[in-house]
């Protein structure tokens, strides 16, 4: 038995990989649904957007790329429905070059579902390189930093952009961020300086870094990773005037359950084997 446990610690990594793949594919092929509760951070996100008056412009910085899509896409999709269902007027910007082709088709598709007009009900200003320098200029002078929108139209000719010159002209900023530049930079350069109400949606990896901002009310709402996106998605879907859309976040959350159990199982087995064979390891050197 002890010999088996000792050799178990030197298990080929490919067997662990196969187990990991199975823990992902099995719940996808045999789907199940477990109930979940909405966390206070996500509930606050939803409530803050609900509290905005109809017709209010909202600045949304969608800074995610293909690699962070599984985590942030469900939030972005639900957020679009939330915006248009509440007759809010989103202005989208992005600081990542790979974001526009991901978000622009979805913005157009969702806007058409709610019969919203480009330039009157929503605007996409496109991508700008320069990271914090761009964020700083969004805080102060949007027309200078974004003289044209994503389609090349001068923003001065867009009806919705009349009277919007800087971040302070928005009652709310939503940063959907995959890392750098993202929530942290918006808090440093805009929220901290102009005290602009701000909401964040981030990947699970950076979630613990942003909790202090939520606690100090610099972020009024926070969605972290797939759980946050799935919970927000459910809140939006339960609204009356929202058009139906697929719950990608909730589907992924159920798959996540089995994968997490598998990793906990690996940790438990690994430690059990380690404690049972600790003396053997001392004799033979670390495995």
């Amino acid at each position, binding site marked *: 038995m002890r010999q088996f446990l000792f050799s178990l*610690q030197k*298990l080929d*990594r490919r067997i*662990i*990989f196969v*187990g*990991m793949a199975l823990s*992902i594919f099995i719940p996808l092929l045999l789907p199940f649904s*477990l*109930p*979940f*509760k909405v*966390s*206070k951070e996500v509930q606050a996100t939803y409530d803050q957007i609900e509290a905005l008056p109809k017709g209010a412009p909202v600045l949304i910085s969608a800074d995610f*790329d*293909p*690699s*962070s*899509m599984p985590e942030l896409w469900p939030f972005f999709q639900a957020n679009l429905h939330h915006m248009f269902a509440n007759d809010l007027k989103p202005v989208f910007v992005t600081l990542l070059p*790979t974001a*526009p*082709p*991901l978000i*622009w088709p979805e913005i157009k598709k969702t806007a058409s579902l709610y019969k919203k007009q480009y330039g009157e009900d929503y605007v996409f200003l496109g991508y*700008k*390189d*320069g*990271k914090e*320098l*761009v964020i700083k*200029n969004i805080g*102060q*002078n949007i027309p*200078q*930093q974004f003289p044209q929108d994503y389609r*090349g139209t001068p923003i001065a000719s867009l009806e919705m952009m009349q009277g919007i010159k800087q971040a302070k002209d928005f009652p709310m900023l939503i940063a959907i961020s995959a890392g750098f530049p993202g929530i942290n930079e918006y808090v440093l350069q805009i929220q901290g300086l102009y005290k602009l109400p701000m909401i964040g949606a981030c990947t*699970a990896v950076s979630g*613990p*870094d942003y*909790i*202090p901002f939520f*606690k100090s009310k610099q972020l009024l709402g926070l969605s972290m*990773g797939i*759980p946050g996106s799935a919970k927000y998605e459910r809140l939006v879907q339960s609204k009356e005037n929202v058009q139906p859309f697929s719950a990608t976040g909730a589907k992924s*959350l159920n798959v*996540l*359950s089995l*994968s*997490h*159990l*598998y*990793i*906990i199982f*690996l*940790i438990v*087995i*690994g*430690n059990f084997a*380690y*404690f049972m064979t600790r003396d053997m390891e001392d004799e033979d050197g670390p495995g």
Partner: protein
Amino acid sequence: MRTTIPLFFGFVVGFFMLGDYFIPHWTYQLIKGYILEFGTLLASTAFLLGIINLIQVNLPKIIAREKDWFYKVVMLVSMVITMVFGFVEGGARMDDDQIYKWIFDYILTPLSATMFALLAFYIASAAFRAFRARNADATILLIAACIMMLATVPVGEQIPFFGDYLLHLKSWLMDVPNVSTRRAIFVGAALGTISTGLRILLGIERSHLGGD
């Protein structure tokens, strides 16, 4: 001379940007706006510089048929093809029927996403091999990680009796020990950033200018 002039410009621009916090006058803000915009242009130029450097490094290796030269050819060819379609297709490059959009959707997106997805498998392997309760510190870390992994997914909530407490415990871990840790790191990092920033503005720190 070659160092003093850049340092002088850096000093002037840096302190001008610092002054923005205290001087809200419109002329001052106008100049600051230009500096920020020029900064974004310089950041994009740096990207261009990176590409020039990439060609400078890889082209001689291809010509000399060095190790893995074929892969370098593939890299440069992919780069040129993407760039050409990006420039040729212009403002319509992101329309559904464009080759540039096709390259983005079916080459860049899957490759980029899968590169990061590989980490899921390695983290599982690391959890099995390296995550050991060897001492008190490691045990605390391990228990906190397991609580977090269980409580963030719906299956954790379903555990009879304990499930509800698990959720609250997870929130407590995030709201109290996590916040105190992050704040301590914030304080250290902020003090470090401020001191490094001042060293750069005053010209004491010059490593970003490179050697002579």
